[in-house]
């Protein structure tokens, strides 16, 4: 096979490396503080119209019973996740049998494994590519706080520096049952979500003057 190798590509590999380095430094500089846990709903009291709540209920039911997972399995926890997907624990009982390689078709990110600074821009990109509504489960000690590698020079101390995390599952790695329990906790959380906005919050064209 003869292909001329002196052909100029748009980017040489050293340029790509340089760009990647820049991106990593950027992400590293911008994620010193951890993102707050999205827990506002925990204290929220639901006083809503019956019609709206039942519409909400249907939508939430649909959302929580088909959580599709994006593939983001850097390390060890991946094998406990696969075990949970596998023949013995079988997460497809919760409508989760599909692992989506494309984040655009997924709504749940199970962060199974250590996150390094080199990987951080990619994880943030995966998260940004997922369509709303989206949830994140931080699986294992590395996902929560960097775990055993927290004092290392290349490890992000917890996924909540990069993406907001809904449920934290301790363990290194957590047993498949613990993960399934966390998924059920997430389902409970989704069940409380308010999907249809209140009428009073919507812009009403008839009541222009009063707003």
């Amino acid at each position, binding site marked *: 096979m003869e292909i001329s190798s002196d052909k100029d590509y748009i980017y040489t590999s050293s340029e790509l490396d340089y760009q990647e380095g820049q991106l990593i430094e950027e992400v590293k500089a911008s994620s010193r503080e951890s993102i707050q846990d999205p827990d506002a709903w925990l204290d929220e009291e639901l006083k809503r119209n019956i019609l709206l709540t039942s519409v909400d209920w249907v939508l939430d039911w649909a959302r929580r019973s088909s959580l599709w997972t994006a593939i983001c399995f850097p390390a060890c926890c991946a094998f406990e996740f696969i075990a949970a997907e596998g023949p013995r624990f079988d997460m497809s009982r919760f409508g989760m049998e599909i692992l989506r390689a494309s984040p655009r078709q997924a709504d749940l990110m199970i962060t199974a494994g250590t996150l390094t600074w080199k990987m951080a821009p990619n994880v943030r990109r995966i998260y940004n590519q997922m369509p709303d509504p989206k949830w994140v489960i931080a699986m294992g000690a590395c996902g929560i706080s960097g775990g055993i590698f927290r004092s290392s020079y290349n490890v992000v101390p917890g996924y909540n520096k990069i993406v907001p995390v809904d449920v934290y599952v301790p*363990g290194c790695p957590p047993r498949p049952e613990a993960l399934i329990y966390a998924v059920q906790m997430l389902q409970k959380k989704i069940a409380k979500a308010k999907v249809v906005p209140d009428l009073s919050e919507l812009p009403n064209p008839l009541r222009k003057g009063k707003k």
Partner: protein
Amino acid sequence: MKFERYGIGIIKGMAVTIKHLLRHPTVTQFPDQRLNISRRSRGNELIWSREKCTGCATCAKTCPQGAIEIVTSTNMAENKYEVETYRVDTGYCIQCGLCVEACPYDALFMGYSYERAKYRRAELVQSNDELLESPSRPASGYFHPEIAETLPKQTLLVEKIVEKRKKK
């Protein structure tokens, strides 16, 4: 690539698959049906006994990552150390069990339960009374064979299948 055996290999494979239809499934229906986990299970928490603890901080020294924080003060009246704070961040602990092995007074145990997921990061930090043993936080038999004897026998996937075959 030509098919040398005209699909015999595929048919053989199909036969294996079809046999699986008649077998007992290996699935555990988790929330309704629970496995007896290992007696030595290193669950996702640490159990601390306030009575036995002398505040020597061997556990904190042995912990490979320093997840245990222990503050002691001297009690002059009874001439001993008293533990003021004992704090473990379960989000940082990796359940390696080295602290339980190292404790010279048998005051530490690994937890037996695993359903410890939380909505908030701060809830994962446990201190003082939250670390004591209670019915919802049983201790496991890791390095404590006397506790292991009282725990139920572990469900083994391999035993289940072999016993089923014998019954036939």
